[in-house]
């Protein structure tokens, strides 16, 4: 009996196993493409250009096994959002477009020992104070204004710089990927233009879907892991979602243009110019990798500054020190990133990576794992999971919409086999921003959230609230259900917003 298939406008997917769909390799594709989704999610994924974009990604040299679309995938530019592509770091390439403009856009969660009862009645005071003290929106400035020397130091030293300058404590480093510093970073590979854009934005949320949210833990699904993460029901936590701001956006475009000028031959083989890639080992690939790592450090500092400012706001509102409120970083995840990682892959008789059934042996390979709108989800025991969580697996933070809540997962035991150690990054957009503005009015959304769900929202612009209305997102519960069922990211806890500020 042949496998079930799914027909999307011109592309037929075959079901390989439950929740795993495959676009067979044909034409100039170097590997098949895979989509991890339930049928309900696949219907939505098939609705825009996501499938075409994930298929295009398989044209990149060095793509290993498959290009993979996560359950929350949607159309992006070049590489879809929710895309994972592992490109050989020796014979493949690295693609700025497959990382995305907002290098190290990501989320971090901070614990507190406050309960929802401690907060009730003070929501408005807290949301107003957060909004007044955490820069957001376009042109809102940053928590620190830096000269060029400081920007360079941030780019090369990451969160270490922040801690040394009073924006955090040593313990913060222990709960951050790579302890908050990418040592491969080189500030000289970031253009002056990018630094000029970034220097007034250090410690700022930006606009669009970026936000800071005070949340309450509504469910803990796994007591053992919840305990290791320090999460319990009714507890107040803070979630911060933002990235590398103008500095990262400019860096992406600077390198896209350089690749266009220097590696036209490779570009001509690709179906979408936005996938532009630098061949592994080329000067440009090395320069981009160093620049991207510097932008990663910049984004970490950005989130660190906002987190530390949030501690100070809580101190004023609750009249206690942040240490008394045990406001500690739980974890920080990146969801727009490429990292050189070592993965075990199946290789065929000719020593080249092949798929499951065709492998004669398994070998370790260095890969540039591109995760754009996807989160690293390393399982328990993996050496790159920080000591604090090594026994239970890496925390994965999945922001949902304002109405549906958010999840904390842990890296699942199948993630290394299925997704190069990755899972979803959020709910995934369903409705375009222009459509959202026609369907919703910011004021109504704000009032409804406050009256029905006791969620206090404050934004620079009403349009932003309309564009981020709960109805514009996919069902985060379904995304997480599929991640959990596949064993790539397991459900640990769920949180629900109380206060939300955005640009």
């Amino acid at each position, binding site marked *: 009996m042949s496998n079930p298939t799914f027909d999307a406008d011109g592309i037929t997917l075959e079901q390989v196993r439950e929740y795993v769909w495959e676009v067979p390799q044909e034409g100039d594709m170097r590997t098949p493409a895979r989509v991890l989704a339930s049928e309900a999610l696949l219907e939505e994924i098939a609705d825009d250009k996501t499938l075409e974009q994930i298929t295009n990604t398989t044209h990149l040299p060095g793509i290993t096994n498959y290009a993979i679309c996560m359950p929350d995938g949607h159309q992006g*530019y070049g590489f879809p959002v929710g895309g994972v592509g592992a490109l050989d770091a020796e014979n493949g390439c690295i693609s700025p*477009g497959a990382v995305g403009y907002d290098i190290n856009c990501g989320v971090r969660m901070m614990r507190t020992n406050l309960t929802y009862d401690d907060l009730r009645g003070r929501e408005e005071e807290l949301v107003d104070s957060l909004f007044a003290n955490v820069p957001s929106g*376009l042109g809102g400035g940053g928590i620190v204004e830096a000269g060029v020397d400081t920007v360079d130091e941030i780019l090369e030293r990451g969160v270490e710089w922040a801690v040394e300058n009073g924006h955090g404590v040593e313990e913060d480093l222990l709960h951050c990927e790579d302890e908050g510093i990418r040592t491969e970073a080189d500030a000289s590979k970031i253009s002056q233009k990018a630094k000029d854009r970034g220097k007034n934005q250090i410690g700022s949320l930006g606009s*669009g879907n970026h936000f800071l949210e005070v949340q309450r833990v509504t469910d803990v699904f796994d007591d053992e892991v919840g305990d290791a993460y320090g999460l319990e029901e009714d507890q107040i936590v803070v979630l911060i979602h933002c990235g590398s701001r103008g500095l990262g956006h400019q860096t*992406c475009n600077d390198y896209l243009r350089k690749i266009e000028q220097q590696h036209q031959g490779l570009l001509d083989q690709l179906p979408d110019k*936005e996938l532009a890639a630098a061949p592994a080992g080329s000067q440009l690939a090395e320069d981009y990798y160093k620049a991207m790592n510097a932008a990663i450090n910049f984004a970490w500092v950005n989130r660190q500054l906002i987190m530390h400012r949030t501690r100070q706001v809580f101190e004023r509102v609750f009249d206690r020190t942040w240490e008394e409120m045990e406001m500690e970083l739980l974890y920080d995840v990146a969801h727009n990133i490429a990292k050189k990682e070592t993965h075990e892959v199946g290789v065929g008789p000719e020593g080249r990576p092949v798929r499951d059934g065709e492998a004669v042996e398994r070998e370790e390979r260095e890969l540039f794992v591109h995760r754009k709108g996807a989160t690293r989800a390393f399982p328990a025991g993996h050496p790159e999971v920080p000591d604090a969580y090594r026994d239970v697996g890496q925390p994965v933070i999945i922001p949902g919409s304002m109405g549906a809540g958010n999840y904390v997962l842990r890296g699942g035991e199948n993630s290394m086999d299925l997704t190069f150690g990755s899972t979803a990054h959020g709910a995934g957009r369903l409705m*375009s921003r*222009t459509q959202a503005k026609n369907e919703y009015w910011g004021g109504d959304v704000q009032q409804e959230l406050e009256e029905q769900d006791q969620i206090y929202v404050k934004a620079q*612009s009403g349009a932003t609230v309309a564009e981020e209305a709960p109805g514009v997102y996919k069902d985060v519960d379904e995304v997480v259900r599929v991640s959990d069922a596949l064993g790539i990211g397991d459900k640990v806890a769920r949180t629900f917003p109380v206060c939300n500020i955005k640009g």
Partner: protein
Amino acid sequence: MSFELRDHTADIAVAATGETLEGVFAAVADGLAAASVDDAPDDGARFSVSVSAESREALLFDYLDELIYLRDVRAELPVDHEVAAIEGPGRSDDKGDTWSLEASARGVPLAEIDAREVKAVTYSEMRLERIDDGWEAYVVFDV
């Protein structure tokens, strides 16, 4: 010259037309401004923008990239775009392989408006084509 904002799941696309190449460039730039803010007030001084690149499409890309850069460093949203002249191979004042443009815009202080941050111009699905009575362009912006 005119533009329309088009639906794109996560981002925003601008479809523009112009009787001339200069006209379509300015129309895309006006689309970028409209994607940033619904209504801009009338104040702010005009400033000039010069860009050069190796091809016509790259010139459009770099022009839009420059406008986003200038927005951040000047803390002003560029609106009311005018593209005075585009020079390049095959055009009246051909100067070899390089394309260049001279343009201007009015900078509305960001402090006076609640503008959305358009992060970047993208090459994804970008089109810049001659049509019967002028030019048309399609550009996707990351927001």
